């Protein structure tokens, strides 16, 4: 093996790679695009407020004070319904999920010496997941009012603390997964595309007549995709930290996972291109292998939210371990988990690379 042969190929590849615009898109723009789009879609899910539609038939100061208290919880956004409106029709027309009606005697109930009881009419669509949130919040405010009006003493007081030191957002979950996903797509498609194209262009036939060995070529290309994977890691991580103010750490575990993932997916691309000779069929095969991984390996959604049988599928997909390992290493600060995932990825990588080396040769027959 000659180092010079490897350097020659790396030099050529480094010149050619960035002259191809689609390469720049897939390695740099695509992951950032994913983060921006999915970050925007999913980020509001946990912290969003619930809209409660209120028909205030009272309109007096008591009702206003009550609504102010609800608003102060910060969890509920109040939208008013015209007191004259036909409530049933209005709910239907606007597909409302949560409606509260304050009766016309609401303020009267607060008057001194009043014996009236005001009935707050809360109507919830129980099929909407945040229904219980509305019920609990309105219930808590109502209880608070009863307590205050009756002048009662507080026997029990609840102090709420947090048991997790850090609060993780969707982006904390998503961004390491984007690194894994991008390493997979660039390495698998890059390698498969290169081999399919070079075979059609007769470049392998030409290289076979030079002193370069197939192993040297393979090694040079794997080193190249390792470099590209590192660029992806740096760009995505930098973007997450600078633009979204994320807290990510780079440690040996994260680096080793990217190294192993890059080798594993490059080798996979090679094996695909080796066994599927037609360029278009090979590209379709690469898609067929990477697509399920994209969606089933817990990049976009937590594995726990998927049905059990899909979780079992995920457990045999290599990308699952790459993404989980990167999350453990870079965000969750769970090094035991990171190294366990690294071990899985490294073993698969070794197997794939051995197969790729064995099946790669210049001569055909």
């Amino acid at each position: 093996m000659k180092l010079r042969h490897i350097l020659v190929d790396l030099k050529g590849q480094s010149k050619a790679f960035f002259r191809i615009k689609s390469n720049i898109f897939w390695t740099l723009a695509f992951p950032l695009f994913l983060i921006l789009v999915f970050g925007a879609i999913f980020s509001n899910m946990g912290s969003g407020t619930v809209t409660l539609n209120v028909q205030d038939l009272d309109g007096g100061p008591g009702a206003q004070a009550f609504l102010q208290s609800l608003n102060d919880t910060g969890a509920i956004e109040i939208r008013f319904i015209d007191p004259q409106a036909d409530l049933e029709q209005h709910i239907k027309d606007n597909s409302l999920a949560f409606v509260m009606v304050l009766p016309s005697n609401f303020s009267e109930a607060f008057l001194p010496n009043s014996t009236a009881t005001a009935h707050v009419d809360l109507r919830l669509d129980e099929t909407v997941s945040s229904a219980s949130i509305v019920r609990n919040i309105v219930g808590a405010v109502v209880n608070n009012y009863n307590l205050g009006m009756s002048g009662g003493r507080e026997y029990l007081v609840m102090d709420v603390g947090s048991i997790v030191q850090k609060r993780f957002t969707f982006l904390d979950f998503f961004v390491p997964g984007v690194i894994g996903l991008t390493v997979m797509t660039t390495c698998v498609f890059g390698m498969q595309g290169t081999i399919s194209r070079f075979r059609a262009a007769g470049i392998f036939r030409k290289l076979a007549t030079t002193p370069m060995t197939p192993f040297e070529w393979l090694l040079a290309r794997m080193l190249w995709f390792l470099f590209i994977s590192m660029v992806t890691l740096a760009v995505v991580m930098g973007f997450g930290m600078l633009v979204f103010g994320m807290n990510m750490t780079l440690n040996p575990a994260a680096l080793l996972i990217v190294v192993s993932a890059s080798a594993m997916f490059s080798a996979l691309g090679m094996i695909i291109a080796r066994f599927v000779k037609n360029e278009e069929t090979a590209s379709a095969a690469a898609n067929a292998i990477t697509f399920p991984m994209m969606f089933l390996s817990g990049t976009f959604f937590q594995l726990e939210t998927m049905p059990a049988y899909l979780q079992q599928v995920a457990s045999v997909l290599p990308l699952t371990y790459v993404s989980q390992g990167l999350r453990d290493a870079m965000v969750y600060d769970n090094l035991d988990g990171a190294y366990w995932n690294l071990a899985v990825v490294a073993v698969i990588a070794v197997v794939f690379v051995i197969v790729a080396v064995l099946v790669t040769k210049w001569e055909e027959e």
Partner: protein
Amino acid sequence: MEFFPVPGETMGESVIEVRGLIKDYDKLRAVNGIDLDVKAGEVYSILGPNGAGKTTSVEIMECLRIKTAGEVRILGHDIDKDQREIRKRIGVLPQAFNAFDYLTVRENIDYFGALFDKRLGAEELIEAVQLQDKRDTWFMNLSGGLKQRVGVAISMVNDPELIFLDEPTTGLDPKARREVWEVIRKLKSQNKTVILTTHYMEEAEVLSDRVAIMNDGVFIAMGTPREIIDRHGSGSTCVVKAANEAAREAVRAAGMDGEVKDGDLWVRLENKGSLAKLVNLLASPHASYDELLVKGSTLEDVFLKLTGRKLAEVEQ
């Protein structure tokens, strides 16, 4: 052509010796026992239609394919034992070769050159194939003829003694084809041995010292183009353009071998006196024609005679 000496007699030692070469694919025998001797400094063409076995044969000589049987010695080295040594000393332009699309001419030459211990300078090679003004153009942006010239330059990076050019002009327009011919002539003038495969009869005839015509895995004729035509050709033909019925009748009555094609009368000239005899016959008062044309036999005619097929037809 006939003024050149027969190269086999005057040129150097054998650079290629092939004996009884056979190559089998799954069920197909692609090469069925060929013998070949190529001397140093020759341009040797293997002419034949697609699927004749040309590329398989040269790819075995280039150490790209493994033979089924037979003996092959390249530059004195056994192909089974000294592939490494052979690779260092040969240059190859594979069939349908495209260099790296997104590298320039210069970068492509440098890439392949740097893989060899002994190499020629990129500028020297660019000059050799006349690509000075395309030096910094991406390979993908070159025309077909220029791409093939880059391919030839790349095949010369290690200053080889023996160069294989596998169908270097296939798919090129006539002008681009002639530009590639110029480059091949230049290789010959530098005393390189060149093995050229082609399915263009004219190319083999114009460029080569010797030709082997290949069909269905075997050589059906070998030698200088002149020798082959003399041995297998049907002599000269006189074409009597727009010959009228009286002219045709006169030729037929005289027992000459004539054939009507598109209103023209094609008469085979069997010996020295044939042409004079024909002219006399056409002098009869009722005979009329537009013009007379004397054509020699070509390798195309030889191929037709030996296989009963036209090269061009087999191609499609």
